[in-house]
């Protein structure tokens, strides 16, 4: 039975650490069964213990130890690495923000502690890193490099790429995508990250595979609508993405009606401060994320494929709280990493999205200017097999 160390920022109800780790402790729904991973959480490091901390209760009930340092959690008082995998969850908790409004979660620092133990003890084990690798591309790059240098499996990212899709579509590998657009909601930088990764897991399947990002630009406010009129993003794709939304606001909330939000003019009224994230790839492909707070509450994607008159579109289904079963979809992938040692999809996806988001935020910070991103020359191939929940 594989032995798991959990390294986290906080452990309280509905934190990522709670619902991720608990699934290893009490099982989770998988393919129509209640699945209990054949693995045991043996140690935990928790950086902060705010009110509502559950770490000691869980340790007592499920028979694992809470250690004061990451190195000790990995070595379990045995003097050398004593676990087979690491679940690293640097999300939630009280951490400072930088001038780009990024919360400085210590994922890189936690990861480096693990890598230090791997180096000293002469053995490396798979790591799952929740969400983006780091707020900083430079740090994120070092993390991926470490995984290659020490040859351990590294998986990272959001639940959105692996959750249910409504409808259940996948772009065929090597497809000809002409244009892509994602709509999302929520704050920056947590939710724009999820939306960008959802978009990336679709567009990485284009012909030639992922070539990296050449330039980005993030604009806000009225300029977003102007950019649409100027053809920088496609109204047809916005209509396609919105056709998948179950959560239009405004008149729908008032009396339940369906809405043609683009043609009835409500969209512009409802979105107080829209944002557009323009991503230009090295192969010339362009994709756009629109954050539309106030208009909808879900995450939808649309793409124009060459030779197809109707765009493809889908909703990334964020299943309801508190079950958040979308995280069960991600746990299944983490389990696969821990079981086989190999990541079911490349960490380069998350690396690229981490870097693209950071550069977008720099663009905003510099007056929304377009920024060239030669450092984001991250190339990779999408997994052949679909990775999202579909059975």
């Amino acid at each position, binding site marked *: 039975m594989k032995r798991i160390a959990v390294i986290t920022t906080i452990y309280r109800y509905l934190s990522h650490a709670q619902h991720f780790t608990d699934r290893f402790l009490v099982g989770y729904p998988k393919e*129509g069964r209640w699945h209990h991973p054949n693995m045991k959480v043996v140690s935990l490091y928790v950086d902060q213990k705010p009110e509502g901390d559950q770490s000691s209760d869980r340790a007592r009930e499920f028979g694992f130890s809470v250690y004061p340092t990451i190195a000790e959690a990995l070595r379990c008082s045995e003097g050398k690495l004593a676990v087979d995998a690491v679940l690293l969850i640097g999300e939630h908790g009280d951490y400072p923000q930088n001038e780009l409004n990024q919360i400085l979660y210590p994922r890189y620092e936690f990861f480096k502690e693990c890598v230090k133990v791997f180096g000293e003890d002469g053995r490396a084990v798979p790591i799952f890193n929740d969400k983006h690798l780091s707020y900083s591309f430079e740090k994120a790059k070092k993390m991926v490099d470490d995984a290659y240098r020490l040859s351990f499996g590294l998986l990272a990212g959001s639940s959105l790429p692996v959750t249910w899709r409504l409808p259940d579509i996948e772009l065929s590998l090597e497809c000809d995508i002409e244009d892509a657009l994602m709509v999302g909601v929520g704050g920056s930088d947590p939710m724009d990250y999820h939306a960008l990764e959802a978009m990336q897991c679709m567009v990485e399947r284009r012909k030639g595979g992922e070539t990296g990002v050449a330039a980005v630009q993030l604009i806000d406010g009225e300029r977003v609508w102007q950019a649409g009129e100027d053809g920088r993003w496609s109204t047809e794709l916005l209509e396609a993405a919105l056709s998948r939304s179950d959560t239009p606001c405004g008149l729908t909330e008032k009396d339940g009606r*369906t809405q043609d939000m683009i043609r009835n003019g409500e969209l512009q009224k409802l979105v107080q401060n829209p944002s557009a994230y323009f991503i230009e790839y090295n192969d010339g492909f362009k994709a756009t994320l629109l954050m539309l707070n106030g208009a909808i509450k879900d995450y939808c994607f649309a793409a124009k494929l060459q030779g197809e008159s109707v765009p493809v579109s889908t909703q990334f289904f964020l299943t309801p709280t508190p079950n958040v079963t979308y995280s069960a979809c991600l746990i299944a992938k983490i389990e696969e990493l821990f079981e086989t040692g190999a990541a079911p999809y490349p960490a380069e996806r998350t690396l690229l999205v981490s870097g693209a988001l950071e550069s977008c935020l720099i663009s905003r910070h510099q007056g929304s200017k377009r920024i060239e991103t030669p450092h984001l020359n991250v190339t990779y191939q999408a997994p052949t097999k679909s990775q999202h929940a579909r059975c």
Partner: protein
Amino acid sequence: MQSRPKIAAIATIYHKYSHAQHIVDRFLEGYGWNSRHHYPPMDLVSLYVEQVKDNDLSKDRLERFPTMKGYPTIAETLTLGGDNLAVDGVLLIGEHGDYPSNEKGQRLYPRYEHFMQMIEVFERSRRGVPVFIDKHLSWNWEWAREMYDISQNMDFAFMAGSSLPVTWRTPSIDMPLDVPVSEAVCVGYGGVDSYDFHALETLQCMVERREGGESGVKWLQAYRGDAFWKAHQAELWSHELFESALCRSHTLTPSRQGFNNPFPTLDEMKEIVKNPIAYHYEHQDGLKSTMILMSGLVQDFNFAAYVGTENKVLSTQMYLPMPPARTTLANFFSPLVNNIEQMFLTGKATYPVERTLLTTGLVAAGVDSLYTDGSKQDTPHLDITYQPTEESTFWRT
């Protein structure tokens, strides 16, 4: 038929989140469908609303859509004020509104009465047009059977039922066609003579695809409260299927504080579900189906069955994007309206109304069983046989 069919809507009430609002609004305002905001290629020209109260929206809709006219009677709604039938399709939405209940707890929605007023116009005009009836045909089995027989005799396209058979599924799978099915379970939520119908339609749209098609139902027995738990412990229905259905839920009530998604023990389920209900029934070909309502434990509809010669478990959730807690739109009405549109355009029902005739009879039998302390109800009248559509009709695109 003209290029744009004229449609009449007959509704009990029209307020926010009433079925009339969900359905009629989609004809008027359009709805998101397959990457477009889709406008049905037909005109909703007339509306009858039986109850107009403070929360009414029909006045607003009539004002904003002047091509739709309100009429004071069902007959005039269908004749557009003239002598003869003047529309090409009818929506009959008898759900919600202030109607009495009978001693068995059934809400006496006037679907039969509205239908018969419509039939009077059809007969007078010597023709019928396609009709959609929302939910079950009637609370009264004999009336439902009469409605069905009339539609057969007059030979107009007739569709009815719930959104559950046509909504999204997670996973997006259908029952394979023409394979053996030995047992099926649906675990849902809600009350008797309301959501039981949705759960029965969930079951039926799947099991009707089994080897030989639908054979009808021999008997039904309902269980409630302690009797339910005794029947459960006696494994009257498969625990494996019951648990598989629960494992498709996105809304399992956490049985332990501080945990967001544990699987409940039997004792915890008993604590959480105060009034469990099951309708357990046998089809003519021996298939056993069980409709289970676990209010308090789940807020979604989940299906599981033993399929094929090796009795493999097939399970899925029929997903309802349900406002107001989780969404703002009840978008499971979109595939329902899309199917209705196809019927209005082609003059052919996209799936058999016999399904809903059968589930209507099953609801009535379930209500009768519960009313008589869980007595077994023989159902020779439910010898309803039919074949499923070859193509899947649930929302996949």
